[in-house]
């Protein structure tokens, strides 16, 4: 949800302070000041300089800009390294580049969702322009060793970008101590509204603008600034920095409680991804022999909102590419469910889920031909 404090600071910029910050008059200029303040808050949140912050419309735009903007700056080199588990905002850009004649290397992951850094080392060539690897996976919550990867990539002088949309606000980020050249974040994961994002670009990084237009964002991203949303994002970053601790204590405890109880009460449940190196708020589980969309609809009827990696919910006809890349077995791939928690959740809500989820799974297993088959094979029927 959008934090109430964020909504509150945004409203005046629709009704009163609606001047264009690029204008020469005072009415617009006063808004420019507030935009600068918001930029400082975002910079502070990321451990960066304000001049390194570029506002965009969303995480997807930040990713597109980072990748295409870098490639445009190095036209003679045509190799990009990424992973098989990226968000489509990175993955589909790579697919598009592949069709345009670029060579794309997609690093694979193991059953825990973990990368093999030797595979990365072997993939780097003198033709490699960019390495783009997500900070934390949006489906499983698995966190990649970005700084370790950074050491490897930067030792070859190759540009290094990360999609940190899912990680921001949940784990500490400090660009001063980082080897990253670029980083993407999005407002809607930070309790700011949907429709605002940031691309962090380290000073001195070669970058060609993706959105070409006026001189906004120091010529790095054209387009009249989305003032109310920028102000909102500034506030959201300020809050996120303050709540980082709570995310890693209270929210982590809620997540662990929910996950433990689910595993306890529902047989044949698998956890997707490394249970140690992952975000504190994500529960990604798979229930064997039942399908995701059915589970989600029954949960939705009870006011519980979750997501799934099943084929029917993925927007294509195949289950999530992340689960496939991890080699999650067929018995479970279509039955995957993700719960994402935040500081706005409470234990009572976890208890509510724990009460209603097991009967839902059992109900669908009673309709499924494979559950009885499984019980028969186990001699339980």
């Amino acid at each position, binding site marked *: 949800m959008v934090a109430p404090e964020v909504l509150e600071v945004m409203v005046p910029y629709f009704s009163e302070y609606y001047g264009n910050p690029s204008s020469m008059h005072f009415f617009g200029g006063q808004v420019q000041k507030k935009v600068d303040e918001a930029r400082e808050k975002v910079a502070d949140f990321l451990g960066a300089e304000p001049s390194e912050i570029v506002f965009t419309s969303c995480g997807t735009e930040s990713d597109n800009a980072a990748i295409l903007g870098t490639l445009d700056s190095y036209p003679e080199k045509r190799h990009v390294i990424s992973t098989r588990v990226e968000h489509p905002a990175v993955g589909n850009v790579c697919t598009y580049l*592949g*069709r*345009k*004649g670029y*060579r794309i290397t997609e690093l694979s992951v193991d059953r825990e969702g973990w990368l093999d850094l030797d595979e990365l080392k072997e993939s780097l060539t003198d033709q490699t322009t960019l390495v783009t690897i997500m900070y934390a996976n949006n489906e499983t919550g698995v966190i990649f060793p970005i700084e370790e990867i950074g050491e490897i990539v930067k030792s070859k002088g190759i540009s290094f970008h990360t999609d940190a949309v899912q990680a921001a606000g949940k784990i500490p980020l400090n660009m001063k101590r980082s080897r990253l050249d670029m980083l993407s974040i999005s407002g809607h994961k930070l309790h700011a509204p949907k429709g605002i994002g940031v691309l962090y670009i380290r000073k001195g990084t070669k970058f060609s603008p993706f959105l070409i237009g006026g001189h906004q964002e120091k010529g790095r991203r054209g387009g009249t600034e989305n003032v109310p949303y920028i102000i909102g994002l500034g506030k959201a970053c300020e809050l996120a920095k303050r709540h980082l601790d709570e995310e890693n204590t209270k929210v982590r405890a809620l997540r662990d409680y929910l996950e433990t109880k689910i595993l306890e009460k529902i047989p044949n449940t698998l956890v997707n991804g490394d249970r140690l190196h992952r975000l504190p708020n994500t529960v990604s589980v798979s229930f064997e*022999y*039942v*399908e*995701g*969309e*059915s589970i989600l*609809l029954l949960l939705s*009827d009870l006011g519980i909102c979750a997501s799934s990696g*099943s*084929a*029917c919910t993925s927007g*294509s*006809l*195949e*289950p999530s590419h992340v689960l496939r890349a991890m080699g999650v077995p*067929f*018995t479970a791939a*279509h039955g995957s469910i993700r719960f994402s928690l935040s500081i706005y959740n409470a234990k009572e809500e976890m208890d509510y889920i724990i009460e209603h989820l097991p009967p839902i799974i059992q109900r669908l297993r*009673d*309709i*499924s*031909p*494979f559950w*009885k088959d499984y019980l028969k094979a186990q001699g339980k029927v």
Partner: protein
Amino acid sequence: MWDYTEKVKDHFLNPRNVGEIENPDGAGEVGSLACGDALRLTFKLDEKKRIKDVKFKTFGCASAIASSSALTEIVKGKTLEEAAKVTNQDIANYLGGLPLEKMHCSVMGREALEAAIANYRGQKVTKEDFEVICNCFGVTDREIAHAIRENDLKTVEQVTYYTKAGGGCGQCHPKIEAIIEKVRKEMGKEVPPYKPERKKLTNIQKIKLIEDTLGREIIPALKADGGDLDLIDIEGNKVYVALRGSCSFCPSAEITLKQYVETKLREFVSDDIVVEEVRP
């Protein structure tokens, strides 16, 4: 968020005839865990050979469960001859309609019924009798042709909605187009044109088309086997490539180049293309 009719929601939340009949007269199963949907249908006949009792078990989404439930309600009391005439459209209509992307669930219903009736009659209709067109979802030419005929399908996209064929890697699209053309001709219906006239290409157009075909068709296929390919240069009708990954030390690399890469480029770009390997 799917826009489901009230009837679909009803049959999902309160499915009729869930279960498995012991010692059924007919039993049919289609789909699999891998596919993401599966239907097991069993029925029992009365003395007059009408379907007295019919039950289903389904693994799948709301549309799949609702389609199965609807199917059992439709066929109850019918003779086998009458039941055999039930189409996937009947199932969809019974439910007040299904989203286009979910039409394949109604097709699954009809296929399970067909399999159960064939089982009763002792007919063995196995997939081995037909050619598998779509490897991602294991869809045969017979299934595709049947869907085209029953639902007046014209495009590959529609075939995907009704059978899932072509919804994965997309490599079977040309084959599906060929089936559409063939079946629609047999039906006496108009065939949508899909192969544009081969215009003379300028150099720039040819280079772009070569790059495009490599990136869209050829390289993904090589990658599926751990291989890769780099485009080095294009001179006239000669395309110079370097094989990478497992292709670079594969004994069949020459065959891959000539029988696959060259053939594909000739199909999509120009008949006179010659592919040559550049070795470092």
